[in-house]
């Protein structure tokens, strides 16, 4: 089983969100970068579980510059066999997807696993785009993945429920919570990651269709109105008459 897991780099979940250059750039000062949680906890770990059960390889792929290498090594430490970095500066999701598709088309993977979204730009775009560019089925927001020969059975979230789908042949999936339990890298994994192959491949030409013009922070919340615990009815009155929420 030949599995590709697409990983992106994301700021740590506790990172302070601030902008520089007249609110046009994310301020990376003092920010720790991690493997995007959905990619690591769910897509990568489920890929490793499938490999452990069925044999095969798990390759992690990132589109980005050399500054992403430490994050790629983290994915290797969790257990991926090897890594590929497509040496492109990321512009928009479609450009990233074109890089991934161009590379993956040459490799005949049985499945391409992505995360449901990156936690910085919250796109939820790349995986579906890769699927279309490769003319493969796409199962979004998957919470369970089982494989039997060349058929995969996948559960995905839908409005107010769960859908069970069967896919024959190669497919692209985006992973959400439930797919696997996060793993913590051990010392051996971290040591081994240093010497695992990380191939750098050249990018293809792409042009961005979207660009970020500026960022804004949400307006500050006005102070919380505290109601005395002995006077719960007052809270209900406020919610009814003032907030008009009930």
């Amino acid at each position, binding site marked *: 089983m030949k599995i590709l897991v697409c990983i992106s780099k994301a700021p740590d979940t506790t990172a302070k969100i601030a902008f520089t250059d007249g609110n046009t750039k994310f301020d990376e000062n003092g920010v720790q970068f991690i493997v995007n949680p959905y990619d690591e906890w769910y897509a990568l770990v489920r890929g490793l579980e499938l490999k452990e059960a069925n044999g095969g390889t798990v390759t992690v792929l990132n589109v980005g510059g050399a500054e992403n290498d430490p994050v790629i090594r983290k994915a290797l430490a969790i257990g991926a066999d090897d890594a590929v970095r497509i040496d492109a500066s990321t512009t928009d999701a479609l450009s990233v997807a074109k890089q991934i598709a161009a590379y993956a088309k040459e490799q005949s993977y049985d499945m391409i696993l992505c995360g449901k979204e990156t936690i910085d730009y919250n796109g939820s775009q790349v995986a579906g785009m890769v*699927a279309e560019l490769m003319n493969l089925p796409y199962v979004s927001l998957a919470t369970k993945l089982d494989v039997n020969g060349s058929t995969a059975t996948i559960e995905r979230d839908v409005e*107010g429920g769960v859908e069970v789908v069967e896919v024959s042949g190669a497919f692209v999936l985006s992973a959400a919570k439930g797919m696997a339990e996060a793993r913590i890298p051990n010392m051996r994994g971290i040591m081994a990651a240093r010497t695992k192959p990380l191939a750098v491949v050249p990018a293809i030409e792409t042009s961005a*269709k*979207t660009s970020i*013009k500026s960022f804004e922070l949400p307006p500050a919340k006005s102070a919380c109105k505290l*109601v005395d615990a002995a006077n719960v009815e007052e809270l209900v009155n406020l919610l009814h008459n003032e907030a008009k929420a009930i």
Partner: protein
Amino acid sequence: MSILIYADTSNGALTKNAFEAVNYGAQLAQKTGDVAVAVVTGSASGLEELGKYGVNKVIHVADAGLDNFDPQKVTHVINEVANAQGAKTIIFSHDYAGKSVAPRLAAKLDAGLVTGAVAIPNTDGGFVVKKAVFSGKAFANVEISSDVKIISVLPNSIEKQIGEGSASVENMSVDVPSTGLTVKEVRKESTELSLTEADIVVSAGRGLKGPENWGMIEELAHELGAATACSRPVADIGWRPHHEHVGQTGIAIRPNLYFAIGISGAIQHLAGVNGSKVIVVINTDAEAPFFKAADYGIVGDAFEVVPKLIEAVKKLKAS
């Protein structure tokens, strides 16, 4: 030119998110002088209703092969309809269906896509869409430069403008391609209100001490017609089902009213609920960070406050 809006259905009926996306497209069309047209796939009824949300015309591709949702097929159909209608802007809801179709269509049309839009695009000199980023901790203004533009609208983020009238429904047939995907089963949690569509959500955390104490949370939710949710540790230790977990790594919700009971307000939890219109916090600790994000709060013990709250809501309903 026209603006095409994909209106999703569930069990043959239009969803709340569909009405919202259609209204977003209609408001944009009004601004740009385009015509807004909606498209519905698979068996569905009640489509005339979309007239109230601002479209005069609905294209219905009623092929039974589309009743089971397959993003690859839906992408193909929307592309055909967009061509037939000369649509240059295509709108989705940023919901489960939109998330799986919009990116495919963008790749097919080599079009710029902005997901999770929170406002009608700014078209003064360009085409700039405001969207939530960093899990709701900031917004980005994103310009789309391609000829065809695709947007998905973050649920519960625009003011709807509801009018009169009914839309005319035109049937269109499209050859639906076969794909490698088969839908085997759809399990709807029909007894519960869908968390992402609920107007009111009652959520509780580790402060509740154990799963046996959720009775009062469910009762409060029931009285308010609300859905229930929880913090991540509560789902991880199995006190509540995983699909109730909200936050950065669970699901993101934007209800009109969010009750956080016995939840500390960690940054990763807030990331999933900070789009709520009104936040009420009940916590024993006056220093709990959640109070900083709240509109209303009670510093107190959930085991005393929640039963009183249930009584007060009952009293309000009776009045």
